[in-house]
């Protein structure tokens, strides 16, 4: 009965299964070639039918990924340049010294009143000065407008000439008034100085 069964199995199952089962069971194989193979059936894991495709984009994709990683690393490594310190904004330690506070006697009521009134008078004075200046400007502009109108009535060509901008005028520079007028043949003394400005490089 067993012989018949093994014959059937050997015909049904592929040859290599049979061979394998024989190889696996060495001692059983030694006994007979047609041992019951059913007990020694071994199968591999379930495999899908699609074979592995070689994608052409793959190496490029890998390169891209590597580059991105490199760039991120570079960005992290980049240190922003240090700002140049603005020395005007940093209070020097000398000014915070307590010994330097000036003794100021309290201001009397009359004095504070006088100061407040003087401030108001000053703002009024400055406003009048400003209005006068604006008026002066308006006067000048009006005068020029009238002059150009009259010129236009007289002669178109002269009017066109007058309208042309004067390029030789700018840049116009002039030194302002001084407190005392310049001395004739004054020799200014030569002074030496040590330049202690701090120069920062970024």
């Amino acid at each position, binding site marked *: 009965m067993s012989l018949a069964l093994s014959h059937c199995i050997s015909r049904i199952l592929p040859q290599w299964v049979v061979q394998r089962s024989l190889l696996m069971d060495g001692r059983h194989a030694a006994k007979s070639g047609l041992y019951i193979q059913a007990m020694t059936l071994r199968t591999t894991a379930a495999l899908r039918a699609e074979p592995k495709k070689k994608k052409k984009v793959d190496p490029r994709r890998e390169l891209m990924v590597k580059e991105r990683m490199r760039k991120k690393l570079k960005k992290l490594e980049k240190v922003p340049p240090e700002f140049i310190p603005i020395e005007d904004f940093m209070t020097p330690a000398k000014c915070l010294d307590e010994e330097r506070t000036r003794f100021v006697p309290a201001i009397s009521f009359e004095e504070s009143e006088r100061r407040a009134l*003087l401030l108001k008078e000053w703002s009024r004075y400055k406003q009048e000065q400003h209005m006068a200046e604006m*008026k002066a400007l308006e006067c000048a502009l009006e005068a020029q407008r*009238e002059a150009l109108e009259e010129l236009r009535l007289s002669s178109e060509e002269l009017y066109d000439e007058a309208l042309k901008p004067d390029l030789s005028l700018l840049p116009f520079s002039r030194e302002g008034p001084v407190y005392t007028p310049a001395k004739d043949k004054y020799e200014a003394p030569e002074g030496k100085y040590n330049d202690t400005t701090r120069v920062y490089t970024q």
Partner: protein
Amino acid sequence: MSLKPGPASQSAGLARYSLAAAVYVQRLPVVSADWSPTEQRFRDMMAQMELEKSLLSDHELRLIEDAERLKRKQADDYDSDEEDVQMDQDIVLAQDLEDSWEHKFRNMQFTPRVRDDVDQDLSSVQRCLMDFLVLVSEHAVGDQKLWLLPQREWQEGETLRQTAERALASLPVGLEATFLGNAPCGVYKYKLPKPLRTDSSIGTKVFFFKAVLSEPSASSHSALLWLKKSELQSYLKPSYMMKAPKNLCAPAPVFALRLHSRATVASVACLRLQRQSGAKQQQQLLACGGGVCRSYL
């Protein structure tokens, strides 16, 4: 292309005026003007306030230290070994430094800001260093000799600015001035008396061009006067001054705008307003002008 009076005026049948250009040369202030009383008071108050809010400087600390050390030295129980810092005997006190600085300042010779003798000489360019000066020259107009801004008749083929430059160059004293632009800043129109009128011109239009004196020349001439704006009234004819002062309304730099020039501006503004026909404008501006004038009374 020759520059002639255009066809527009001919075809419209308007009266033809002959053209002239005058130059308004200014000598800008050399020295800063004095402070007005309000400004002086405000300056003092500001200096006082800033002093109160300030800290003691190094120099002042040194003064205080020296004073204390002197006091300690003069006390009966003075022991030089108690001094914190061992110093040399010949030390320079801060007070000595101050004295030497004061001495140096007093020995320094400054040129005086105001020189009365030069101020009286009307033809000198160096007079009144704090003010704006305007050049005025004598012209023979008809029978009269008038004081006017230097002017010349316009000739064909040149621009008005060139005429003004010619007027400046033809003065007896060589003056160098920078002209401020090609456009005139004012105009003065006058009609000739009837017998003198011709077909070509019934009057003259004088265009004023502004210039700034570059270098004051040393020489002076009796026919040329440098006048302050307040003095112009006594030399120029009133009607001429009414028009020419439109130039005086010109903006003066802030640092030199002082009471006298502002009074002129205010008075001229009032004069201008009275001539204008617009009642509304008159009201508005008179109010402003009045407000400005009030402050000087």
